């Protein structure tokens, strides 16, 4: 039985479950207590102290985020003592902060700025400590920028990187006035084990961690009359972009997204979903081939389970952390990179454009894709396959810069070719989506029938649980696949690298046996990616997931192998899955990296 605790907050009685913190109890009464270090996704720290409240009778203030309610507590959230402390704390933070808001990338979406705005922090009371510090800005990473002069040391990034991602590329270092957030030995971020996932960026309340933005470069390309600028949009962007532009979480803005991109001046507006479908063709075939080699040919060089490879944060993670498991990775490039390689080959040929004049831009929910685009393996077209990667947030900035009234736009459709997609391609954006898409196709290839789930919705692989498992029994197969008759295909899905690490450890220790595993670096999958709108929390991610599945349901084609453009590209260009051309353009290899 749950114990209820009675207390008053600002003299209003409230009854909440035992274990509730003061800040949560206040929320029930629609009383917002300001907070900085606290984040719904993270464990409690209680270090910023802006949430302090008065407990009548207690001479010291209590951190509302860290203090559980107790019977008969009387809490005041706005007493004189509280107000003075709160204001002083914000002033202190600003005195240690390079508060040049007008020139800051986070201007307009910054929790510290909001707080100082709310409390009308005027002329600085305290001494400006900035000139006394030797802050550095680390711009070494292609994905993110770490600017210590904007850091308020709330350690959200540290907790994100350790608790959610099990990477711990960042730690608090030193103590006292020297305390700072640091990589190992303060090495440049591109030299350390950072996966570029950007989860820390999503949770940093200030401008201390931001994506490395390529907005100006993309504008320059658009303005260059000699360039043909193609843009691809990842599945998760269309269910999140709206949040930056006036919509509530969960809004589907696909059509407006396309219109806006056209208005920005992109020459061709295409869809990563197309290469998501292509990924399914390649990866599904690869899985079946691996199964055959292992089950029939008893080929021990083939590793099972096979892991998906479309999340570049996950790729860098496994390269650092489980290099011995690299043979398990599918050799398929991510949809972004498949698209990039095709844009400067297939697309260029069909359009009769010299690939050197093509600038390939992608709009991604992901910061790791920025890094991925720069990998030396990603130049199979003979050029850098993807030139610039913009996050959902950067695109929103461009849309605002261009004065586009997004909410008033009409819906338009993607250009053809490489703009058509199936619902299977769309659900790539949610955790479990790649698995679901792959099963829809692979099952049908093998049995000639649709997956035995109502309305094609493979619900066991959906949802926000950290690690999910499912089984599909394969029966009455086509003659080519007789070796799979009666086999129960066992699959697992993990999202967030901490879950991935748990799953990998279990696999390495031989504790679990699967055939196929989907891993996404980010909580919730790409829809919770490091380049998505800020803030993020479970509720928002669930809304985005609902939107993704709604988008899928509403598409006429729900299976990758039925996408007519996919059928066409195999006829015209690739031949068949895993063909020579496919291997050349759509597959890649991985490099073991040092964990330390």
């Amino acid at each position, binding site marked *: 039985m749950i114990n209820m605790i009675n207390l008053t907050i600002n003299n209003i009685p409230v009854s909440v479950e035992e274990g509730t913190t003061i800040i949560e109890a206040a929320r029930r009464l629609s009383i917002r207590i300001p907070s900085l270090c606290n984040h719904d996704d993270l464990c*409690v*720290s*209680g*270090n*910023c*102290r*802006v949430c*302090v409240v008065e407990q009548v009778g207690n*001479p*010291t*203030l209590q*951190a509302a985020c*860290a*203090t*559980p309610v107790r019977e008969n507590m009387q809490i005041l959230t706005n007493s004189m*003592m509280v107000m*003075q*402390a709160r204001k*002083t*704390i914000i002033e*202190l*933070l600003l*005195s*240690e902060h390079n508060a040049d808001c007008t020139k800051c990338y986070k201007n307009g979406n910054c929790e510290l700025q909001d707080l100082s705005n709310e409390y009308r922090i005027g002329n600085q*009371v*305290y*001494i400006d*400590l900035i000139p*006394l510090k030797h802050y550095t800005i680390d711009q070494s990473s292609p994905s993110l920028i770490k600017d210590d002069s904007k850091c*308020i*040391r709330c*350690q959200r990034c540290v907790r994100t990187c350790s608790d959610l991602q099990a990477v711990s590329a960042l730690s*608090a270092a*030193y*103590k*006292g*006035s*020297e*305390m700072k957030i640091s990589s190992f030995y303060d090495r440049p971020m591109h030299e350390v084990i950072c996966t570029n996932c950007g989860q820390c960026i999503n949770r940093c309340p200030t401008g201390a961690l931001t994506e490395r933005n390529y907005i100006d470069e993309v504008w320059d390309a658009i303005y260059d009359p000699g360039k043909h600028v193609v843009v691809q949009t990842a599945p998760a962007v269309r269910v999140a972009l709206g949040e930056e532009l006036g919509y509530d979480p969960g809004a589907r803005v696909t059509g407006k997204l396309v219109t806006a991109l056209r208005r920005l001046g992109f020459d061709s507006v295409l869809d990563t979903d197309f290469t998501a479908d292509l990924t399914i063709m390649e990866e599904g075939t690869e899985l079946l081939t691996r199964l055959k080699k292992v089950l029939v040919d008893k080929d021990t060089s083939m590793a099972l389970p096979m892991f998906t490879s479309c999340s570049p944060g996950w790729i860098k993670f496994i390269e650092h952390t489980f290099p011995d498991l690299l043979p398990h990775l599918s050799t398929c490039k991510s949809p972004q990179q498949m698209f990039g390689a095709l844009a400067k080959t297939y697309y260029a040929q069909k359009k009769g454009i010299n690939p050197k004049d093509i600038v390939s831009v992608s709009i991604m929910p992901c910061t790791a894709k920025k890094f991925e685009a720069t990998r030396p393996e990603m130049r199979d077209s003979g050029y850098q396959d993807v030139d610039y990667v913009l996050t959902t947030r950067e695109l929103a900035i461009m849309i605002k810069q261009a004065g586009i009234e997004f909410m008033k736009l009409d819906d338009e459709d993607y250009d053809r070719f490489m703009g058509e997609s199936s619902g299977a391609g769309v659900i790539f954006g949610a955790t479990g989506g790649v698995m679901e898409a792959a099963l829809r196709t692979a099952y049908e290839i093998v049995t000639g029938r649709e997956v035995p789930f109502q309305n094609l919705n493979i619900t066991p692989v959906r949802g926000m649980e950290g690690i999910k498992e499912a089984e599909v029994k394969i029966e009455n197969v086509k003659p080519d696949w007789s070796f799979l008759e009666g086999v129960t295909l066992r699959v697992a899905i993990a999202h967030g690298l901490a879950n991935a690490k748990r799953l990998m450890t279990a696999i390495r220790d031989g504790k679990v046996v699967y055939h196929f595993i989907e891993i996404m670096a980010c909580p919730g999958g790409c829809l919770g990616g490091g380049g998505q709108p800020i803030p993020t929390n479970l509720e928002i991610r669930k809304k985005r997931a609902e939107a993704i599945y709604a988008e899928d349901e509403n598409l006429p084609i729900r299976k990758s192998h039925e996408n007519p453009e996919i059928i066409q590209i195999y006829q015209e260009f690739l031949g068949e899955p895993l063909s020579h051309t496919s291997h050349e353009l759509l597959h890649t290899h991985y490099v073991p990296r040092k964990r330390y």
Partner: protein
Amino acid sequence: MTGKKQNDMETKKLTRVDYIFRPDNTCLDTLKKSLRRDRDEIILELIDSGLKGRGGAGFLTGLKWKLAKEAAGDVKYVICNADEGEPGTFKDREILDRVPRRVFTGMALCGYVIGSKEGFLYLRAEYKFLAPKLMSIMAEMNQEFKKLGLDFTLNIRYGSGAYVCGEETALIDSMEGRRGEPRNKPPFPVTEGYLNKPTVVNNVETFVNCTIIMGIGAEEYKRFGTDSSRGFKLFSVSGDCSKEGIYELELGMLLSDFVEEFGDGDTKAVQVGGASGFCVPRKKFNQTIIGFEGIPTGGSMKIFNSSRSMYHVLHNYLEFFEEESCGQCTPCRVGCQQLLKGIEAVKSKQRSSSYLDELVKLAKVMKVASKCGLGQSVGNAFVSIVDNFREEIIY
């Protein structure tokens, strides 16, 4: 905590006693005797004795043991806090050097009472020279415990130069291999301490007192001190003083008596309780009781004569805190820097003297809003020095 003596408050004459440093070879007899007693009875006797923690915070020791005993769990720990980092405190070193058995006996008693099988001495790095001797005595005691049928083993862990690790939850972090960043309380260590198991953390001298109380009984012990401050206490006396050193005195004396005994005749102020304690100016000596009803102290008494600049003293303290703050929470990390830079700015006339009032306000916010005792007590020294020696800070 004004440190002012209330009219009707009981005080004690300055009286030297000698319990703590008596030879410690009878301790095992005390332990043997106690092991035959009921655990709750021991707790009751400790509570009855009125013993409060000697590490500074002054929590009732018997009650702490009771909470740990009642906490759910099979695995529990006893930790002796020998991090003694408070400037001007050196009594724990002397105890460990001269009567370590008395400490270890206290820890074993605690282990017996709360049901813990493992105890740790957390020794500050600066005292590492004591380690060889302490380890051999520990080994010897561990054998004795076995002979007595007590399943309790003593171990040693070291600090590595961080004052804040004297704070009990930071100490636990440090023992767990982490940065010594104090935790949110609740939960308190008695329910979730080392490795999240119920843990008693007591000061070195506190354990010694427990051993003494088991030896002489609460009745005898209660004869010393006042209602709020039972017993006697070691004082680490230093500064402008005719006889610096360690003294065992009954609690509840007036600071004026203390100064008469130890001062050099020209005492201008006494800093009671180290850098995190209070500065008492001459005019308040005869209104200030040393004890939990007045100014509680971990035992540090630093005496300043009229040749000393109180600006210099305060500056030194603030440098100390600015460096030794763990740095996690805003009021303390930034507040310490602002207080330090602030008095420098006032001194150098870059800021007007009224800025001191802003700083006093800041110090008061630090007191109520910081996460742990370190940040909460920076204001003690700051406000008491600025209030009493404002001119010295400005000019």
